């Protein structure tokens, strides 16, 4: 699965995307897995209320299932316009 990071989430984790082999069932499960890896992930995911999620380029949430997902993205609230 491709995992993408944007804005300050990208900066804290230190890379824009990576390929992750995971059997996480939901976005929450994936976040727990990442948090356990290294401090930079724990720092990026310290406050989940500040993080938004997209699964296969559609807005989702931490309960979104990951079955068949090809791409998951984490980013702060959007500021377009």
């Amino acid at each position, binding site marked *: 699965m491709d995992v*993408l990071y*944007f*804005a*300050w989430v*990208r900066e804290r984790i230190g890379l824009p995307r990576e390929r992750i082999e995971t059997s996480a069932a939901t976005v929450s499960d994936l976040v727990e897995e990442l948090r356990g890896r290294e401090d930079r992930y724990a720092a990026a995911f310290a406050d989940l209320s500040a993080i938004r999620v*997209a699964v296969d*380029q*559609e*807005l989702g949430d931490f309960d979104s299932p990951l079955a068949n997902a090809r791409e998951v*993205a984490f*980013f*702060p*609230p*959007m*500021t*377009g*316009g």
Partner: protein
Amino acid sequence: MRVVVQAAPFDYGAECADFARDRTDMGAVVTFAGIVRGDGGLASMDIEHYPGMTEKALTAIAEEAAQRWSLGDVLVIHRHGPLRPGERIMMVATAAPHRRDAFEAADFLMDYLKSRAPFWKKERGTEGENWVAAKVADEDALTRW
């Protein structure tokens, strides 16, 4: 309907002039342009986006507007990359037979673009760098629709 995401500047005057040109069934055109403000010593605003998702999200928002209001055409242009104060970040345009539809659809597009299109702004200036935080008021604005 046209949705454009690009790093290059766009020609706002030419886009306005061409939008709904030669239509004789649209009585009203509304355009909105967003411009980088030079507040607080801002030197540059860097706009990051999510290639692929951005185009999908903007298209979905424009289609939603076309379903809710009686529109003849919709245009959305949004830039990414570094921009300087005074540069135009983005524009929307709506054409409708009557003015209320054109106004409301443009207003709706802007509210959704603000909070539901995957763009993030980083300000660089005399006060250093910082990511622009989403405003509670912008999220609240969505409840109007």
